């Protein structure tokens, strides 16, 4: 990876996004269920940051909190999310809307359901350009064509007038990528952007995201369960389990010499192109059980600390 671009870790001033000791719980009838436990991560300008974990690790929730689209029952019980130096966890609806487009973008997990079936492709790209960049119809159309060209869509003139149901999954994900990059945001959350795609299309889409990122200079928080993908595209990685950060660091170091047992187990469970003969090992149940216990112990300690403080 192009390590030269990244400022050394641990320079909070240089971060475009800084998640600080974030705690989040889902409010239930009787009690809160903790989802995120003391999560911290920093993303520098131009950095592609992998967020890795199994389903239920809370990785998608972190992306949602950053975008302000977490479910209404999710409560931020501690910590902060600094974007461009300002806390964005408690913005009003109006302030939040101003942040979108030019500040934050999203590449969704499932392109089949993320485009509005009732409107043409062209309109769904042009509307953000008109809203955030104040473009008129003609300028927005020209820029839309340019974006479709950038994401390697053939016959952009025709696709402009088509509806989502007329495009393949890969094409739709390219359109989603065009929307995400349309207003040149500083940070894009890519929420498992290749999971719902055909294996043959996955590599192309991955390459496209990397290319657009290099071209536009945006930072990306790349949420995935696939360490193989992380190795290809990410500068740094944060490994998450049970809503806790287990390990974080440069991709090369994590992949080649991980300090944490869980990361190594995850690696062993990931198919590798350079070693196709390896047998895949599932993550041992004793390990996940121990990690779950640690998480519960943490909850108890956090609750006790909160009671003492209050």
């Amino acid at each position, binding site marked *: 990876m192009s390590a030269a671009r990244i400022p050394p870790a641990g320079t909070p001033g240089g971060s475009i996004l800084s998640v600080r000791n974030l705690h989040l719980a889902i409010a239930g009838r009787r009690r809160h269920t903790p989802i995120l436990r003391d999560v911290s991560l920093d993303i520098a300008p131009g950095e592609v940051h992998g967020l890795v974990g199994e389903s239920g690790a809370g990785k998608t929730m972190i992306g949602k909190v950053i975008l302000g*689209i977490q479910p209404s029952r999710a409560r931020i019980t501690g910590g902060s999310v600094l974007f461009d130096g300002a806390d964005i966890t408690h913005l009003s609806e109006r302030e939040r809307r101003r942040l979108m487009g030019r500040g934050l973008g*999203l590449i969704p997990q*499932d392109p089949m359901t993320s485009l*509005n*079936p*009732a409107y043409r492709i062209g309109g769904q790209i042009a509307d953000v350009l008109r*809203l955030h960049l104040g473009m008129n119809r003609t300028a927005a159309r020209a820029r839309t064509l340019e974006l479709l060209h950038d994401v390697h869509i053939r016959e952009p003139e025709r696709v402009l007038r088509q*509806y989502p149901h007329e495009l393949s999954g890969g094409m739709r994900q390219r359109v989603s990528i065009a929307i995400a990059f349309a207003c040149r945001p500083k940070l894009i959350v890519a929420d498992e952007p290749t999971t719902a795609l055909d294996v043959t299309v996955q590599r192309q889409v991955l390459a496209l995201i990397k290319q657009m990122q290099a071209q536009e200079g945006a930072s990306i928080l790349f949420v995935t369960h696939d360490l193989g993908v992380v190795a290809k595209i990410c500068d740094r990685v944060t490994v998450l389990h049970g809503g806790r950060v287990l390990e974080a660091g440069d991709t090369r170091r994590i992949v080649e010499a991980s300090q944490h047992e869980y990361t190594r187990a995850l690696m062993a469970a990931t198919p590798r192109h350079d070693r196709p003969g390896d047998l895949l090992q599932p993550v041992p149940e004793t390990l996940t059980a121990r990690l779950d216990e640690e998480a519960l112990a943490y909850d108890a300690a956090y609750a006790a600390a909160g009671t003492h403080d209050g």
Partner: protein
Amino acid sequence: MSWSFLLRRLLLAIPTLFGVAAIVFVLLRVVPGDPIAMLIGPGATERDIAELRRLYGLDESIALQFVYYLQDLAGGNFGTSISMRQDVMELVLGRLPVTIELCLVAMLVAVGLGGAMAVAGAYWRGRPGEAAVDGAAGFILAIPDFLWALLFILFVVVFALDGLPISGRIGHDVGFRGATGFLLIESLLRLRFDAFGSVLLHTVLPAFALALPLAAIIARVLKTSIAEAMTQDYILMARVKGFSRARIVCREALRNALVPTVTLTGVQFTFLVGGTVLVEKIFSYPGIGNMAIDAVINRDLPLIQGLVLTFAVLFIAINLLVDMSYALLNPRMRHG
């Protein structure tokens, strides 16, 4: 949407209409009540009555009467009204535009009012505004159209709202006789705004009485439908795009919520058309609904048959229009 689809539906309408004609024809002759007795004076002799029965073909067996009736229908002859002694077709066609205009105005009111309530309820989801919309819809729905008509008249009388007419279709002082029965449309096209205003004012109360129950149904269904659309991924995308809640509800969700609502509105619209029978009578509004009541009271068999067939044609036409509108609303159904 294709011509073969349209042709097939039009062909299917023929057996439907035949069935309607047969059922009405037999029912009218089985239930008690004699048109001749309604027509003739109390001093008539048995011979006079028998003579009249023969004249109107009522002395034959029901099966034979039906065959003659079908023969006439095939020749475009709907028979002669017993009570008014005029051609049924002429009578119905003279009144039909009145009811069509009334129903269209009522439909506009229902869609506008119901749509606004649905959007407001969806916008204020989980807040007091939504409860207010639900309550209003429930209240409106609890009162049927003819009762709304009576309530409106009561209101106008009690509060002496002289500006709101409660009877007829156009003011007597307005000298406007249209070439067609479509007074509302014709007066507008001829720029006779005085006549247009008068007809519109006369139409307000019957139209609202007909529209309110349908508006409440539209409000409920469309609101649920919007709420369902609001849970979809593309709404999350719209939020990430930075759109306002009003824009997300009105543009992103509403458009996708329309299809189920249109189906239901089409079905319910036929009830609205049926409602004209009572509501037109209450407001002395000169449409086919009003005429139907008189026809039934007079046991005017040919006229009742003609009116029922007219209503049947209206219902079939409405359902066909609803089916054709799907393709307009849902791009996924355009190539099929």
